[in-house]
Each structure stands twice: as structure tokens, then as C-alpha cells.
């Protein structure tokens, strides 16, 4: 045994660099369950985002309601753009919560001790994904009903919404971890996320417009491929970069 390494220091090292005994996915699942449980106790993010989504859609339908009756050729793309704007801003209000709350409640240090960085990231990512899918489901349903949107190809729209949500979460989870350490959190989250989300938005809006207009699956395959590539690239980059963000 190396004489310079005392038994005590090895014990210390293993406790400070988190207990790596639990497998990665188990630890990530535990982080996810912890977040869900603490969210269900306060329902802070859930209430705020759902009410935000409802008021956005109602505000849009106040102005857009009469448009549906007149035959407007550009209506699918207008509807698709509005739907994604509603989803985007709902996401901006809620998705930073997972990390910001750890800093505000001063529990980040405890989390650092009890799980590996990658496990923390994956757990928060899943939590954000679950939250966003809920937002998307509620927003889209309300949107379709209240604005009297005719969905020509519901399957393609659902696929695009799912792929877009995956990309959105992959891009914003790391940003949420970054802004949790900054001083003006809310505004900064939108400012930092928006430029990175621009390609995703363009593709998702165009694909969704095709889906609303009732075009076939072949019109949306390109958009789905870009969204999948975007998600994979940003997810991989996040895994590489998260350790640097999560350092105390």
C-alpha cells in the first residue's frame, strides 16, 4: 500500500466525492422521486405554470377566436407559432425551479454529498421532462379547444410536441443549473435559454404547422430528425459540462 495515503484520507475521499455505491440510474431515480415529492408538498411550480398556461391560452383566444371562421390560408402556421410561444414561456416560468429551489432552500450542499453530479443532473432532467410534458398536454388541449384549432394530423403533432419537449428540456436543464447560482434568476433564465432554443423553435413550429394543416408524416420526418439530433447533441454536451456547473 502507498505509505503516503493513510486509511483515514481514503475514507474522507470516498465520503466527500459522494457515495458511489448506488448505481447511477438508481441514484438518479432517487433524485427524481425526491423532487416529485417536494413538488407535490408545495405544488409551487405546478400551480404557477398551469395557471400561466391557462391565462396565456385564454388571452390568445380572446384575440384569435374570431379568426377561425374566416378562411385564412396562413392560419396553421399562426396557430403553430402561438402554441409554441405559449409552451416556451410556460417552460421559462417553471423549468428553472428544480435547481433554483435547491439554492434557495440551501439544500444544494446536502444533495452534493448524497449523489453523484451525473445522477443529480439526470434526476433533475427527468423531473423537468415530466413537468414539461404535463404543461404541454394541458396547454395543447386548452389551445385546441379554446381557439377551435383543427388538427389535421394528431399523431404527427403529438410526436413533434414530444420531440420538442425533449429538446427543450435537454437545452434548459443545464441553463437552470447555471442561473441557480446567479443573482437575477428569473429573467436570466429566459435570456440565456432563448438563443439556444431558436433552431428548435423554428423546426418545431414549421413541423407543427404541417401537422395542423393535415399533411402526412413525410412532411414532419425532417423536423423530427432535426429535433432528435438537437436533443442528443445538447444532452451529451450537458453531461460533459454539468460537473463544472455543479462544483460548489
Amino acid at each position, binding site marked *: 500500500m502507498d505509505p503516503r495515503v493513510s486509511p483515514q484520507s481514503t475514507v474522507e475521499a470516498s465520503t466527500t466525492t459522494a457515495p458511489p455505491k448506488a448505481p447511477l440510474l438508481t441514484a438518479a431515480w432517487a433524485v427524481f422521486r425526491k423532487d416529485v415529492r417536494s413538488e407535490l408538498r408545495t405544488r409551487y411550480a405546478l400551480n404557477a405554470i398551469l395557471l400561466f398556461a391557462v391565462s396565456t391560452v385564454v388571452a390568445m383566444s380572446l384575440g384569435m377566436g374570431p379568426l377561425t371562421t374566416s378562411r385564412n390560408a396562413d392560419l396553421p402556421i399562426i396557430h403553430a407559432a402561438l402554441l409554441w410561444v405559449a409552451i416556451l414561456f410556460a417552460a421559462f416560468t417553471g423549468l428553472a425551479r428544480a435547481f433554483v429551489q435547491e439554492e434557495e432552500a440551501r439544500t444544494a450542499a446536502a444533495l452534493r454529498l448524497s449523489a453523484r453530479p451525473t445522477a443529480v443532473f439526470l434526476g433533475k432532467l427527468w423531473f423537468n421532462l415530466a413537468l414539461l410534458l404535463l404543461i404541454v398536454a394541458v396547454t395543447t388541449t386548452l389551445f385546441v379547444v379554446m381557439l377551435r384549432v383543427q388538427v389535421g394530423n394528431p399523431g404527427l403533432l403529438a410526436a413533434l410536441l414530444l420531440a420538442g419537449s425533449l429538446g427543450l428540456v435537454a*437545452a434548459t436543464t*443545464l*441553463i437552470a443549473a*447555471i*442561473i441557480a*447560482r*446567479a*443573482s*437575477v434568476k428569473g429573467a*436570466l433564465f429566459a*435570456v*440565456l435559454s*432563448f*438563443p*439556444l432554443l*431558436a*433552431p*428548435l423553435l*423554428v*423546426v418545431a413550429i*414549421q413541423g407543427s404547422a404541417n401537422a395542423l394543416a393535415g399533411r402526412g408524416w413525410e412532411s414532419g420526418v425532417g423536423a423530427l430528425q*432535426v429535433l432528435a*439530433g*438537437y436533443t442528443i*447533441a*445538447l444532452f451529451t*454536451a*450537458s453531461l460533459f*459540462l454539468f460537473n*463544472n*456547473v455543479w*462544483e460548489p
Partner: protein
Amino acid sequence: MSDRLRLDQAAKILLGVWMAGIVVAMFLVVPQYVGLGDAGRIIILHVPTAWITTVAFAVSAVYSIRYLWKRRASDDAGAVAAAEAGFLFCALATVSGMWFANIVWGTPWNWDPRETTILILLLIYAAYFALRSALDDVERRRRLSAVYNLFAAVTMPFLLFVAPRMAESTLHPNCAFIQGSHCDGIWLELNGARVGQLGDVVLALQGIEQRGDLAVAQVEVRMPGLREVALLTPSFELSSGKPADRPEFPGQQFLLAVEGVDLTNGRVLLNMEAPGTGLLSNSRTFWTFMAANIGFLGLFIWLYRLRADVLLLQDRLARREVAYELPA
């Protein structure tokens, strides 16, 4: 004075003279372009600044990687300085481009692919500075802004891929950006394939006639959104072998050009051009343009290195102040 300093001094003077020369050449050496008038001279200023913007973004990303790897303050200073210089050039390219677009295309903003990309780049730079100003702890500011810089760099390829799909067409002179167009154009024959397609425009050759040194083609144009068929008559100069008269497509800024003629067999080579195409084929313009690229690159390197030195010095001063004020 050491050799290094003397070399720096000489390089600085050379850069100043070089840039002054470019400004003079911009107005005296570059000839007036037929379609654009004096506005065409902007290529000497606009294109190099836009190009430096992307170079600055890449330089900043490389410094960010080095910072996360080695955690040296000098790398962070390099990343910030490159981003700041890049932001300056980005703003210059955007403003000069909008000015030009307003004169030549009639609108300052067109959602052209390059306009989209440069706008997003401007937003990324701004977000990067906003993030830095919102982080108080020095070490954390450096680390997190480097992470954001790299994360933003990952999305750039997608932006470059997606932006051309946003607008139907582009006004920037580059045929590769025109959807469905081939840079080589299409051959139409009076006795064979008379109808062909360039992008979403359908062309039909109606006739070719020789008027002195000019070969004039009559081309029927059908395009989406155009109710009636338009007849355009682009011409070709036989002696020089170059397109002569390039009419505009109805309702669009694109030009139809004849790029080759085979009079005996009744064939013509047709292509579409964006305004400004062929600007660089003039050798005087081309060399001034290349000199401007080199000059602006030198200007960028000088700017960002100077700024990096200033940032490092500020950092050192701040730390010394802290050290002196602490009780021994």
C-alpha cells in the same frame, strides 16, 4: 526598448496604415457596380466584419475549453475579450447590413438565413455578458460563463442548418442558399427540352435571336404566387462571353441571367442570381476585399489581445488591493 515591444509597435503602425489604405481603396479602387451603385462598396466593410464575428465566436469557445481544462485566469480573459470584440464586429456587421438592405432590397430586415444567424449570435453574446454580470464570485463567474459559451457553441451547427429553411429564399449573393437551385443553372433547347425549373420557378424558352454582339433569349416565366405568365428577355454578350442584361423576376429581387449560348443548336444556359452576384469577379474589388479581410482580422487580434491584457491587469490590481487591505 526590447525587440518584442518594437515589433508590436511596428505591427500596430502597419495595421493603421493598412486599414487607412483599405478605406481609401474602398472609394477609389473599387469600381461602381452596375446594379447597386455606391452601395455596392459596402462589401469591403460588411463581409469581413461578419466573417470576423464567427471567427471571434470560435476563438472565444476555444479559450473557454482551455479555461475549463486548466483553470487559468488568462484563458478566461481571452474568452471574454474575444467575445467583446466579436460583439462589436457583430453589431457593425448587422447595422451595415441593414443599412445596405434598406437601400438595395427596400427593407432593412428580410429573415434571410444570414440575418437570422447573426441575430441569434448577437443574442448569445448579449446573454453571455448578462450572465457574467449576474455572477458575483469571480471563480464561479469564469467557470459558469465558460460552460454557457461552450453550450451555446454546440447549438450553432443546428442554427446554420435550420436558418436556410426559414425563409423561402435569400437575397445574399450565394446560389447555394437559394432553395432547389443549382449553382450551374440549366440548359434549355429550342428543339429539345424547352421547359425547365430553377428552384420553384418554371422557365420556358420561346426563342433566341442575335442582335449585333448580343444574343437575346425570350423566356416565359411561371412562378407560384404569380397569376400571369411573364416574358423576360435576358441577353448575353457574345464577344466577352458574359451575361449582359439581367432582368428581375416579377415581384422578386432575383435576376435571370443567360450564362452561355449555343446559337447553332438553339441552346441557352439560364441561371438565377441574387443582386450582388459577380461583385467579386472584378479583380480590383476582389483584391481590396481580400486586403480588407486580412486588415479586419489583424484589427480583431489586436483588439482582443489588448482587451485581454487589460482584463488581466484589472484582475491583478483587484487582488492586490484585497491583499493590502486585509489585516496582516
